[in-house]
């Protein structure tokens, strides 16, 4: 796991157009961010394109990063996720539907509790605790959408549920998650 303080220092230097710092920033974060892209687009050549686009974007917009709002890696990850999601939603993209069926199985609603699969940071434990409060369907749809980029339609198709049902699971799940996390953050 890349160290957020080191990344923050490198980003500060990148703001001032320090190219050596940018290469260091890439070296520190590329494996993590490539994995995030790969998990969503599921093809190495696509993930490479997404990573390339994302880093060009990061370089061009690095001055807009605000340390008060999010950790540097969270900000960078959001850029990669957005690029990857845009990539998936391109018209005429050939999907491998069988991959989705495997994924849906892997994130089944009776899979091991999220506390087993989430990392050990304090934030991760808080999220894991709150994910446990959701119903299995709510948890599964949220994880499939966030981690693997499944759309409402894809979730409905692969979970063999009406679209409205899937949308309700997600909406209620997110609502409950927020309530739970805001309470645990305040406590």
């Amino acid at each position: 796991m890349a160290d957020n303080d080191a990344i923050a220092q490198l980003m500060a230097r990148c703001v001032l157009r320090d190219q050596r710092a940018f290469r260091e920033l890439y070296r520190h974060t590329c494996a993590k961010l490539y994995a995030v892209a790969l998990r969503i687009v599921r093809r190495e050549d696509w993930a490479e394109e997404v990573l390339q686009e994302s880093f060009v974007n990061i370089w061009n917009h690095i001055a807009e990063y605000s340390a008060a709002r999010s950790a540097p890696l969270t900000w960078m990850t959001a850029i990669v996720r957005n690029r990857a999601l845009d990539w998936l939603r391109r018209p005429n993209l050939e999907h491998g539907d069988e991959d989705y069926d495997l994924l849906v199985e892997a994130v089944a609603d009776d899979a091991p509790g999220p506390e087993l699969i989430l990392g050990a940071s304090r934030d991760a434990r808080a999220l894991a605790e709150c994910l446990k409060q959701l119903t299995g369907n709510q948890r599964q749809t949220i994880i499939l959408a966030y981690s693997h980029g499944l759309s409402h339609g894809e979730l409905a198709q692969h979970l063999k549920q009406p679209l409205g049902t899937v949308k309700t699971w997600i909406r209620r799940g997110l609502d409950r998650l927020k309530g739970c996390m805001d309470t645990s953050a305040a406590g």
Partner: protein
Amino acid sequence: MKYTNPQFRDAVSAEYVLGTLQGAARRRFERSLKDDPRLRQLVAQWQNRLAPLDELVEPVQPPARVWRKIEDRIVRAGPRRWLSDMRFWRAASFISAACALLLAVYIVQQPPRAPETMVVVMSGDQGTPAMTVSWPVKPSGKPKLRIRVMGHPDMPPGTSWELWMLPGSDQKPVSLGLIGTAPMQELAIPANLAPMINRATGLAMSQEPAGGSPTGLPTGPVLYKGLCTPI
């Protein structure tokens, strides 16, 4: 569409971060984000809530060609976008010309020695000059920076403006101190920075927490920056 209802704003932000807000609705939401800082705040909160889900990703090393392509696109092609921005050069040449004229008058009036002056025209993302900093180039002593702030910029409560010197391409920026929004200011800088500032490549000004950067390096957004031009 306007995002006014607070519950709706939060719900749309959540689905945007989750990735289930799609197509035209996603584009529309991204357009609203540009000029709605509170909406950006809601999005950041959701990113922070869900970010731990990325902790369980096993890192995968991408092929080396990815960095080479990135480098081709940004480092070699345009190391400093604002250096190639015509508006920057137009503003810089205009102000340089004005300063040269002033200097010429000064030289005529005081023929023996004309101290060289360094001028930095600083601009924001739009390329419009927003601030100038100038100081006499002297081999020793404490330089006093003369700062002109144009327009009437707002400084949000709880924040400070910090001025940075950029010593060169591979060195870390050095803080010169905090400045305000007043149209005319002076900032005396420590004597030990004097030899450095005369060789600096540029200056930058960032928005920091009240009292200045806690880390000794810029942490907030860089509002203005510019190159040092000796005249």
